[in-house]
């Protein structure tokens, strides 16, 4: 098996080091109110969807945001685009704090920050043709120009995402999932954004089609110098496409590291469990691999556990720690501690483990 020494072939997709981040998120918090049923909808609690999340997105970088459903990764993506109002925290883009902008002041910035959605069947308006869908962003921002200009731009966009512009007059439902996702990408690219939030862009696609869309995203990053915030639950895709990974659990980032570092030296027990829970498409390896199995399921984000949020499912907490050590997990919130080379883990008893 290959070790850490990755051949650094120049794909043109390496992030520019030492540059200032394109987008920077600090102490982002989002709580959704939970209301009682009935006429007077009293506020009875809060869903702690995103808690104290901080990260930087570098130019030309793909930052993978990984976690299971309900971990807050999708909400984080929406927050970054100001589609959901943050409870507190800062999102800095181009020197401006997005959380403080009015929707009018936000509009010009939307050209730079775009999103591709998970479900290619839900994210395209069924009453519009593909041409109309791709032209929509140009029209909104007054870039469509006269009709022959606009049509040329739309054709060029469709070509760029690997679609035949001749099919632009069809309705989206006539296309396969992969082609629809390409239309979604073309729409996001129409405004020439700098940052693309990709919310599970390939999760809904069939395996054989997934690869083409992943390749397309890689090509676009090279050609257009995009920065990706790549949200996914699929660690295999993340390992392939991301430069850096942040793992989220119950609203918090529990571990963040450069991609190879994370997969070869996973330090947080949750990351370890996540990696080892993914079945490998290789029968021989699958039969012999080491596993970190989790018990139970994710607790409710309305009432998260005290101290370390992962402790209720943590195999280390259950099997290896002494009573004193357990007390620390119950009482103290573990901070993200730097383990060198940009590798941070939020675990009091972090230990690197190679699982694949």
């Amino acid at each position, binding site marked *: 098996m290959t070790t850490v020494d990755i051949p650094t072939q120049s794909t043109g997709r390496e992030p520019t080091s030492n540059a200032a981040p394109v987008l920077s998120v600090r102490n982002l918090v989002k709580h959704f109110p939970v209301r009682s049923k009935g006429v007077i909808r009293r506020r009875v609690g809060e869903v702690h969807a995103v808690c104290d999340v901080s990260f930087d997105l570098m130019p030309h970088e793909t930052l993978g945001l990984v976690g299971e459903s309900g971990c807050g990764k999708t909400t984080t993506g929406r927050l970054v685009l100001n589609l959901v109002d943050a409870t507190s925290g800062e999102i800095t883009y181009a020197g401006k704090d997005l959380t403080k902008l009015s929707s009018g002041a936000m509009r010009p910035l939307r050209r730079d920050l775009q*999103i591709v959605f998970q*479900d290619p069947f*839900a*994210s395209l*308006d069924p009453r519009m043709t593909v041409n109309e869908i791709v032209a*929509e*962003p140009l029209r909104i921002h007054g870039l469509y120009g006269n009709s022959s200009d606009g049509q040329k731009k739309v054709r060029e966009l469709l070509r760029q995402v690997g679609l035949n512009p001749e099919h632009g007059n069809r309705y989206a439902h*006539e296309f*396969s999932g992969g082609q629809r996702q390409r239309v979604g990408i073309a729409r996001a690219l129409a405004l020439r954004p700098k940052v693309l939030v990709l919310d599970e862009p390939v999760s809904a696609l069939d395996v054989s089609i997934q690869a083409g869309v992943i390749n397309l995203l890689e090509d676009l990053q090279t050609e257009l110098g995009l920065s990706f915030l790549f949200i996914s639950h699929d660690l295999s895709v993340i390992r392939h496409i991301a430069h850096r990974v942040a793992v989220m659990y119950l609203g918090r980032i529990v571990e963040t590291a450069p991609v190879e570092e994370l997969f070869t030296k996973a330090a947080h027990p949750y990351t370890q469990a996540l990696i080892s829970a993914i079945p490998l498409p290789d029968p021989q390896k699958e039969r012999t691999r080491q596993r970190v199995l989790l018990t139970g399921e994710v607790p409710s984000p309305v009432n998260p556990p005290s101290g370390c949020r992962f402790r209720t499912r943590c195999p280390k907490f259950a099997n290896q720690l002494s009573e004193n050590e357990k007390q620390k997990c119950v009482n103290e919130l573990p901070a993200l501690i730097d383990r060198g080379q940009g590798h941070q883990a939020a675990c009091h008893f972090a230990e690197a483990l190679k699982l694949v």
Partner: protein
Amino acid sequence: MTEPTTKAAAPSAGKPVATDPATGRVEREFTVKDRSQFQQTMRRFLRHKLAVGSLIVFLLLVLFAFVGPHLWKYQYTTITPDNSVPPSMKHPFGTDNLGHDMFAQVLRGLQQSIKVALSIALIATVGGTLWGTISGYYKGFVDNALMRFADLILTIPSLALAAALANNFSGSWWIIAIILGGLAAPYVGRVVRGMVLSIREREYVEAARALGASDIRIMLRHLVPNAFAVVVVNATLLVASGILAETSLSFLGFGVRPPDTSLGVLITLGQGAVNTRPWLFYFPGLFIILVALTVNFLGDGLRDALDPQQTRQRR
């Protein structure tokens, strides 16, 4: 069935194979004929025999009401020398005691009633769609205010209010249409709001917001077109209830007033003679039932045809 290949099993084996003209290759991905949503809707609608029949009858009625008066030998105001004659070749629907030709009267009455009903449906639909879309899109305070106001209007017995209002204006048909349409709008608004509440959560609406689309653009480009099916179905049903509302109002004496006429007015005038000269009552009555029934069946057919849940599967 011994051959495991598909050729024996596939009924399509005899059909011509489509080839892509550009590449000359056998087309495999788009073998289903390219059909617009309109075409699909049409196919589903045409399968609804009762609705197709109703559409034809309704169109004939409209033609009859608007073209008929120009062709028929009598005006509805003409007073003929024949008083109270039963239906005959000369007067197919008979005449009343003043010598009005009932056929001409029914033509005019039908025309007025359809005009009022269509206007009611149009006003209620446009107003209600606007109402419901704004309410559903903005949610929160706006929604609460608009919907409580809608509830308020819906608790008012609309016929009584319409009667009271119509009494203060001259009985011209468009006043009645505006009043009845306005009173029906909150009903449409509630239905549209329900649709909009679900549509606004769809990802394509979120995508539009991410692109920086304004609220008005989102409403006009995404919400209204996608709620269109419900709106259309409701509009047809409104035509039916519009006919009945106009009839009731005129019957009570608050709607269209003589010398102008409508189906409701004719019924009122004819009710006293139902035993002695039944043609004065039954012919207008028949047309009221015809219009209301055909429009209802039409609405049923449209609902089935426009229902996005409907698959292409045939039973």
